[in-house]
């Protein structure tokens, strides 16, 4: 007679299968640069062996050489400085107005009911389409470029700000009221800091849009600026210079994103 106590478990023995884990990406600083290096190395290798024709892609080392020449001729800063000024002035105007209106929409019923549809109507308009109008309103010079970038950063900032204000914990606001804090104190000390995470992540989107609009504005009417430089290179089919311009924009984008990351780490260190 078989011993049941021994037989039964040996038949159905099974190790418990692991089925947890995942869904939690962690930062890995080294991978990003490695991907860039691999892509650039592939391009370099491809263009040198003739696997990629030089009509398809410029050779990365030539692009780098062109960049050095641009730097040595002093033209780099003649293009970069006006661009950075336009970017800074336009986005500061747009973002500060956007945060202001976003907070108002977040806090007041009447303003929300009245202006939210307006914002929703402006948001999907490609702002570049309005450039001719802005040139008439604000002049062909810097004014129209500022206005374009300001409007382009304004709408996404409004939307992310009022969403962030909506998400501020109401029980904290009740607490402020229960301690007799003034309306202004509640906004400054509870609503704004509480909305800051949402506002900052909205800023990433707004500033990327600002770079896109900057180039568009400069392509349509500027003699100096990254956009003008790219347009000129493009019309001459000078791929090296075109890629120098595009790379500068990429670096600009990465730098801005890094800066926002720093600001987030600094201002939001209270989050776990």
């Amino acid at each position, binding site marked *: 007679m078989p011993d049941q106590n021994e037989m039964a478990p040996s038949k159905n023995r099974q190790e418990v299968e692991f089925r947890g884990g995942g869904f939690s990406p962690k930062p890995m600083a080294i991978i990003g640069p490695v991907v860039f290096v691999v892509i650039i190395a592939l391009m370099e290798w491809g263009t040198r062996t003739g696997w990629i024709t030089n009509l398809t892609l410029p050779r990365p080392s030539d692009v780098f050489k062109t960049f050095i020449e641009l730097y040595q001729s002093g033209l780099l800063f003649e293009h970069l400085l006006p661009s950075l000024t336009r970017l800074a002035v336009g986005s500061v105007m747009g973002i500060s107005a956007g945060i202001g209106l976003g907070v108002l929409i977040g806090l007041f019923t009447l303003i929300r009911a009245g202006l939210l549809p307006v914002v929703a109507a402006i948001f999907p308009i490609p702002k570049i389409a309005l450039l001719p109008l802005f040139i008439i309103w604000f002049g062909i010079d810097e004014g129209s470029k500022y206005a374009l970038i300001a409007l382009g950063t304004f709408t996404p900032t409004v939307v992310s700000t009022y969403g962030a204000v909506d998400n501020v914990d109401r*029980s*904290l606001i*009740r*607490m*402020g*009221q*229960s*301690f*007799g*804090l*003034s309306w202004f*104190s509640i906004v400054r*000390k*509870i609503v704004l*800091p*509480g909305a800051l995470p949402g506002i900052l992540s909205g800023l990433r989107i707004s500033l990327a849009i600002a770079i896109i609009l900057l180039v568009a504005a400069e392509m349509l009417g500027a003699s100096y600026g990254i956009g003008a430089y790219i347009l000129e290179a493009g019309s001459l089919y000078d791929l090296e210079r075109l890629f120098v311009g595009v790379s500068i924009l990429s670096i600009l984008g990465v730098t801005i994103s890094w800066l926002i990351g720093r600001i987030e780490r600094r201002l*939001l260190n*209270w*989050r*776990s």
Partner: protein
Amino acid sequence: MDLRLENISHNYGEIEVLRDINLEINEGEIVCLVGPSGCGKSTLLRLIGGLERPGSGKIILSGEPPKNTLNALTYIFQDFALLPWRTVSGNISLALEDHAIGAKATREIIDEVLSRTKLTEFADALPRQLSGGMKQRVAIARALAVRPAVMLMDEPLSALDSQTRELLLEDLIDLWKREGFTACYVTHNLAEAVRLGHKIAVLSRRPGQIRQLVEIDIPLEERKNHLDELAIKQQTLWELMREEALAADKELLSA
């Protein structure tokens, strides 16, 4: 200061939440409000503190306010309501900043309440670094900082685990022994009510009415030695509430 509720009734739209509540909270007394969930006890507390307007009836504060009081009716919330971006002392300072008392006085008050609640060494910690019990201690310190006439406590121990709850309960009894504060204490936990309440108002299910006002004469600090009597009181309260809780449980939530 004494607090008197006169014929308080309240509606949320069609729903009647409170009906004809009359209650007195005398100086130095802890009055517990117990009742089945959804009976409007938290609403009543919000009405008392002026965070909501009662549909009808009056809430009257009378008597001499405590010296230098900055906020006569002060809440302690179930979810602590600490600003996560401010340190412990920053959270306490929030309650003081809107009063023109000067930086030095503010500093002194903060140091004093921190030492009274034994939090001095946590002054620069952020809320996320604190356990639930510690967070509620900070909230209590913040409430003490404004020298309230009446503390309005909305289930202050309900978000804590049972050991922490017991510790904080002892802290509160200790605090009352030393300072004799006045409080309206909302809870669904009858054990807390019989340990802490001089009077216990049992509310019926919605619309909340006071079914009975139970008084417990044993002094707070001696209640630990009279657990049998408290158990009987608690049983009486439970029998009062049982039917109501059962019926409330079966009601559809309308909101």
